[in-house]
């Protein structure tokens, strides 16, 4: 089985937008991969005029929120850095136990890379003002800039959601069969760890477990 990989469009977000953006994207992906009996739950974003859908599982929501909290902590320690969150779906396969490997292995059949560029709050650009002295009304132009920026982020987020829908529609053959009583496929959310090298080690570990080379699209 091939592992389908989807690199989502990079989003430039501010610190306070991370939680909402990640919730929206991760839950949307999981909803399309929660093929068991679900009761969909519409969630309206507060920062943007977007409604996404959750599959309504409380445990899933809790786990996603935990991961997002970890990610936010990481971002606070590594400001102004591009980061990537990986949501992987796998199958658990049992294998012959050996000295170096576990009894079970994970076969990743799909990986989603959420690319974020977390920026700090932009300062008011003095270049916009032609005066060297204090700007008469910085509040108004800053508000306009903020709303313009917010609209751009919303449009980008919408694009990402459409990208997810498109990917989900176009690639269906690799999705494993639905097991009875299972709501969603086993998944894993990988966030950058404290160092980049450690993040790379996580990737290598995954490769060892899956036994498949990671294909980057």
């Amino acid at each position, binding site marked *: 089985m091939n592992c389908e990989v989807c690199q989502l469009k990079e989003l430039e977000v501010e610190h306070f937008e991370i939680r909402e953006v990640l919730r929206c994207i991760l839950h*949307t992906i999981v*909803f*399309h991969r929660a*093929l*068991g*009996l*679900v*009761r*969909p739950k*519409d969630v309206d974003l507060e920062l943007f*005029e*977007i*409604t*996404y*859908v959750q599959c309504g599982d409380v445990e899933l929501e809790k786990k996603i929120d935990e991961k997002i909290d970890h990610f936010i902590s990481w971002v606070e320690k590594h400001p102004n850095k591009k980061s990537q969150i990986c949501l992987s779906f796998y199958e658990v396969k049992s294998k012959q136990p050996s000295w170096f490997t576990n009894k079970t292995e994970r076969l990743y059949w799909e990986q989603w890379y959420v690319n974020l560029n977390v920026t700090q709050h932009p300062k008011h650009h003095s270049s916009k003002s032609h005066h060297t002295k204090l700007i008469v009304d910085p509040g108004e132009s800053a508000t306009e800039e903020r709303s313009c920026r917010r609209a751009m982020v919303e449009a980008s987020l*919408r694009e990402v*959601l*459409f990208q*997810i*829908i498109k990917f*989900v*529609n*176009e690639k*269906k053959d690799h*999705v494993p*069969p*639905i097991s009875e009583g299972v709501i969603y496929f086993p998944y894993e959310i990988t966030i950058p760890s404290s160092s980049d090298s450690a993040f790379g080690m996580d990737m290598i570990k995954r490769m060892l477990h899956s036994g498949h080379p990671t294909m980057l699209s």
Partner: protein
Amino acid sequence: MEMDRESGKLEQIVSQFRSKILHVILDSRVPSLHHHHHQQQQESLSHSRVRKTDKWFNLVLGDRPPALENRNLDLFSLRNLFDPMVIDIILVHRGSCSSSVDNLYSPSAPAAGPADETVIERWVVQYDCPRFIATPSGADACVSYKKIYKKSIILLRSLYTQMRLLPAYRIFKQLSSLSQTYNFDLVYKVSSFSHPFSREEESGMKEYIFAPVEALSGCLSVSVTYRATLSDFNLEPLVSLPPKIITDYVGSPTTDPMRSFPSSDKGAHATSFPLRGARPPSSSPFQRPHSWSSGFHRGFPSTKTQSLAGSPPVYRTSPKPYDIASPPTDLYGNRIQNQRVSTLQQVTAYDEYKSSPPFSPSASPSTPSYLSGTNPLRTRHCSETAPVTIPLPLTGRSTRYLSPNSSDPSRHSLPPLSPRSSKHDASSQESPSGIRSYRKIEALRAGESPSGLSNNYSAQKVVRDSKDDSGRFSALLSSSGSPRIGFSRSSSRLSFQDDMDDCEFSCPFDVDDVDVSDSSSQNTEGKKASEFTAQSNLVGKKSHDAAVGILVHMLRTAPPLRQDSSCYSTHSLRTEYEGGVSIASGFFMPRKTADALEELNSYREMKDLLLSKSGTRVVRKEEIK
């Protein structure tokens, strides 16, 4: 045998898929169905039961809307499986406010106004039969059936998500909120064929085709054509306030009955309009908030039902508690009828309002028009007055008198008047002679045209004053060099009563009219004396502005000074002067020409000051000699 069973399962999947998609679409686009559905879902959630229909495609949506339950099942029947299912989401947009005003004067016009219907989304679900149908073996057929079912589940998930990202979802959310009603609605139409879009419609639409689910016996495809933007439509909320009777005007809790106006004898129904920045209308009768709303909003009844008598099959919703429109089996036309009835009442009310002086388009920020059943204007006219601007003599009248927006007939009228008895302050400061002349003018004008237009004109002048209100006049007066007439906030409202009092003074001071009547002014003075005597109580309430203007004109055309005690009656005046000569008392004493000239000059100064404050140029007149 087994293949037939599998084939039957496949067809069942397709049939259920079409039903489920329709359920998803209606649940996300038709507010009335959504409300009904949501209530049921709340109940079902509490019982944690999953219906058989919910288990299809592992998507729990709750009970199907009644439209789906009672519907014609042809679209889902197996024999029509290969017919496309076309679901049109139609935006029913009622006319804008400006166009709706025209219909106010023609009660026979459709109450809902012109309703534009635009297809904003078209979903097409199709199961195409391939040219060559492969005949799989038993095991393959089983696998095929399960794979198709899995892919159908994924397709349904993506469709469910996409529905919330399309522009129409925002409209649906607006309509779903029960806090407001809007001038638009969403209805749906399901059919097995689709009318092609015009070129113009197509230009504004985008298409998205979901990846089809291919089966051996067919290909299940879903596509949507949608309007990329809905900003072209003037979608706005409507009045959410129920019709209400107000019986009092701003600022005054008490009212006195007024004389009936010629056009106010019709039965009237209350009409309420949105207020901006105003306190909510009181439940007590004859109470009106302070602020006015601009524009006229026709209140549409709640129209949560959406259905069209279009191409079959058409599915109508059952009546909902909040739906005040048609009974369940009524078609769209009947719904309009109900709307017409309710709006007709409002139209009648507005006609009543418009034709009854002094109400006219107002320039104030918000103007709710509240009408009572019988002669509400009478009461309102007695309640309060509004300041009247001093018109510029010989410089034309209308444009200067009217406020910038008062020419708009759709504007609301003025607030009613304050009580006659409670306001005696500033009007008592007026010169009786001036007041006499003013009343003469008003009497003449009252006979001119009882139509709404002239009343509107007068009210427009008053509107301007009421808009500016006493704040301006107070400032003007306080800054005048020799204020001889005090002015207060309450008195400014009283000045409105100058115009509206007793149907005779339906318009404010107008110099030109006085000019016309000049030739007979002297002769009719004596005749008017008795009239003034009878209305002596009102003298005290005349606005100083009107009085000043009248006085100026009167002095210009005054006969030789003479004493004529029969022309003046003793008035019980309560005066408030901020210094200066007590005009009322002085007028009863013999005066010399010099005194009169001095008085004239003082009035002229006052007038100039007021006019300069109001931003109008003062046209100096030749001194009366």
